């Protein structure tokens, strides 16, 4: 049975569990459902969960573990020296899997009988051609080892699938019977169902965390590989960025870091005052009618894809700044500049800051404002001296979150800031950022084994640490200065 059919079978067992457990529970009290500890529905759901979930867990584990086991046993077909090498093994296994699935297709289409597929040998003719006939394209001629491995792979996969079906159904069936036996009037089905729900919620919340951990680990391992190939001190303190795939690259972080921070700074200078003032206007002064129109309009900006902002930077803002400010003042002649990218990222961040700050200002209790107004303060005195201080921790948090967005922004800087890695104070010069260089080091057909590509992971790790640091700092500020107004 294929995995899909198996899952459907589990659902069927679950539904049977629902119906039978519910029926049994009601029957056990002679139809008087008031005597049940839990509502009949809960007994039903308990039956469903028992029929469905244990089988599903076993199936999921099996699906993950089986390929790993089979792969391990493929070693006997190959030269151990080759098989030990990580890269080689991955390539070999990819070949084996492709040939195996080619044989599967051939059998399905009737081009080969099951027996032929199991016994076909390279000596009898080109396997590649036979597979090509049924539409399975292979890159190179199949070696005897790979073919044998593929045949063994197919056989083991078939055995595995058979046992998978048996074990899964056995587990599901016994759990189902257990649920049926447990069900009676006093059985606490409600508590058990709620425990399962709790587990479900926990699982959902761990997925995001585990993904983050996974991302960090994968980046970390590549970044560590980079550090074995390139002196790490040169990476962190190098003032030159000039990668060349032929060797002799200089991969200094500082020019990129400088560009990143400079552009972020410009963007924050744009976004923080405008965003904050917008929020104050919306939260304190705007009439409900104005607010109902303006707030969604501002938030439309947040919905524009950043690549569109990039185009805006490239086509409109960049030339505008060059022709009207940079060239007349003699400060630069480049269409792409720190100013362009910073300005556009700033605009991108306005709704982010204004929307968050608006919520935070609204969360300041009205009693606080009344207290100040009741003392004869004007509205603006109240806002400056009472509302904003009370909202400050949240606002700082919002600003720091916006800062980490600015630091991580890629598309706008790619189009607006240029690709020249340099350290310069002039904001009308083209500079570049960490994100842009990560993209440019990884685009194209490159292998992940030279410092020039692996540096992207080190850059990514650096970026991650910076933004993580900012976020942690933001949370710390928010916690430390959170005011307890009820």
């Amino acid at each position: 049975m294929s995995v899909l059919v198996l899952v459907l079978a589990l659902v069927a067992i679950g539904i049977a569990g629902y119906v039978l457990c519910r029926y049994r529970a009601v029957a056990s009290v002679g139809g008087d459902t008031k005597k049940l500890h839990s509502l009949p529905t809960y007994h039903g759901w308990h039956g469903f969960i028992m029929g469905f979930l244990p089988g599903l867990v076993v199936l999921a584990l099996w699906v993950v573990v089986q390929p790993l086991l089979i792969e391990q046993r493929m070693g006997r077909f190959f030269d151990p020296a080759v098989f030990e090498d990580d890269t080689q093994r991955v390539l070999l296994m990819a070949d084996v899997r492709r040939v195996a699935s080619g044989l599967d297709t051939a059998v399905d289409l009737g081009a080969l009988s099951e027996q032929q597929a199991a016994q076909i040998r390279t000596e009898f003719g080109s396997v590649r051609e036979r597979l090509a006939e049924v539409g399975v394209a292979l890159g190179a001629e199949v070696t005897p080892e790979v073919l044998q491995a593929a045949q063994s792979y197919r056989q083991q996969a078939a055995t595995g699938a058979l046992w998978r079906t048996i074990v899964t159904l056995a587990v599901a069936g016994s759990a189902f019977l257990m649920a049926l036996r447990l069900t009676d009037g006093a059985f606490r089905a409600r508590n058990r169902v709620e425990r399962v729900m709790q587990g479900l919620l926990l699982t959902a919340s761990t997925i995001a965390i585990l993904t983050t951990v996974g991302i960090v680990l994968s980046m970390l391992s590549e970044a560590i590989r980079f550090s074995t190939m390139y002196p790490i001190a040169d990476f962190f303190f190098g003032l030159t960025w000039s990668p060349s795939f032929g060797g002799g690259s200089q991969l200094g972080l500082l020019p990129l870091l400088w560009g990143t921070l400079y552009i972020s700074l410009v963007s924050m200078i744009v976004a923080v005052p405008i965003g904050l003032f917008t929020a104050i206007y919306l939260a304190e002064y705007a009439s409900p009618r104005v607010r109902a129109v303006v707030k969604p309009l501002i938030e439309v900006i947040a919905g524009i894809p950043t690549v569109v902002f990039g185009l805006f930077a490239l086509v409109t803002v960049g030339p505008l700044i060059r022709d009207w400010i940079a060239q007349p003042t003699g400060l630069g002649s480049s269409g792409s500049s720190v100013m362009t990218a910073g300005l556009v990222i700033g605009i991108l961040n306005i709704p982010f800051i204004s929307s968050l700050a608006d919520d935070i200002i609204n969360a300041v209790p009205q009693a606080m404002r009344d207290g100040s107004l009741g003392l004869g303060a004007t509205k603006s005195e109240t806002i400056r001296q009472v509302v904003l201080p009370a909202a400050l921790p949240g606002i700082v948090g919002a600003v720091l979150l916006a800062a980490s967005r600015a630091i991580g922004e890629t598309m706008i800087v790619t189009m607006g800031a240029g690709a020249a890695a340099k350290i310069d104070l002039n904001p009308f010069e083209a500079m570049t950022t960490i994100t842009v260089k990560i993209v440019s080091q990884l685009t194209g057909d490159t292998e992940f084994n030279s410092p020039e590509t692996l540096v992207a992971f080190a850059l990514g790790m650096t970026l991650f640490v910076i933004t993580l640091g900012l976020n942690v700092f933001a949370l710390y500020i928010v916690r430390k200065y959170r005011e307890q107004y009820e």
Partner: protein
Amino acid sequence: MEDMRLMERTLATNQVKVAAKGVDVFYGATHAIKDVSVDILDNMVTAFIGPSGCGKSTFLRCLNRMNDTVSVARVTGDIRLDGEDIYDPRVDPVQLRARVGMVFQKPNPFPKSIYDNVAYGPKIHGLARSKAELDEIVEKEAKDRLKEPGTGLSGGQQQRLCIARAIATSPEVLLMDEPCSALDPIATAQVEELIDELRANFSVVIVTHSMQQAARVSQRTAFFHLGNLVEYGETGQIFTNPRDPRTESYISGRIG
């Protein structure tokens, strides 16, 4: 009619601080206050009592134009502070509120130090020309723990801080909107004691749910019911010898 005239005569012997005549308040379509006229006397505590939703807090908020901050509220009629119409377009409500201070139902200290809480009013009104003068004003109201945050105090202490904050601005009238409803009996007793002291320098108006409290702290009591001012007179008279049957029912616990 006889009663009303008698009432007016007794009131006339003291100096009138706030005079309200024919005040109506509308919240949108709701007619919250109906033709209320009250004279609030100087150096006295006046209590507004009545069942929930009778309009006593609404009327209180007319006296320093706090209803201006509610966009749907509309006030008509004539309210005078020392003979000056407070709803005159030339009157700045902000300045008015400096003269008519307010303490709210729930203690609402600002998230600042105790010192800054008390110094808030004097600072914005420029009552102190130097740091030393400001210190003097603050220390008249609050003695110790000045550097601690006002929000860290207990409920009763917070409310007393709010009162101190209100009187640091040296208002002439102090409005208190159920200042003890969130407090325990001990804190309530402390606040009531404070109110009694305040009478020497201010005219105090207190809205309260508790008739015992009105009886304890006030010299004058006004009874509101369904937006009407039913009866207004000396506290002792209201509680022992009410003229209106509705007042009597409320005081004896039959309505409300």
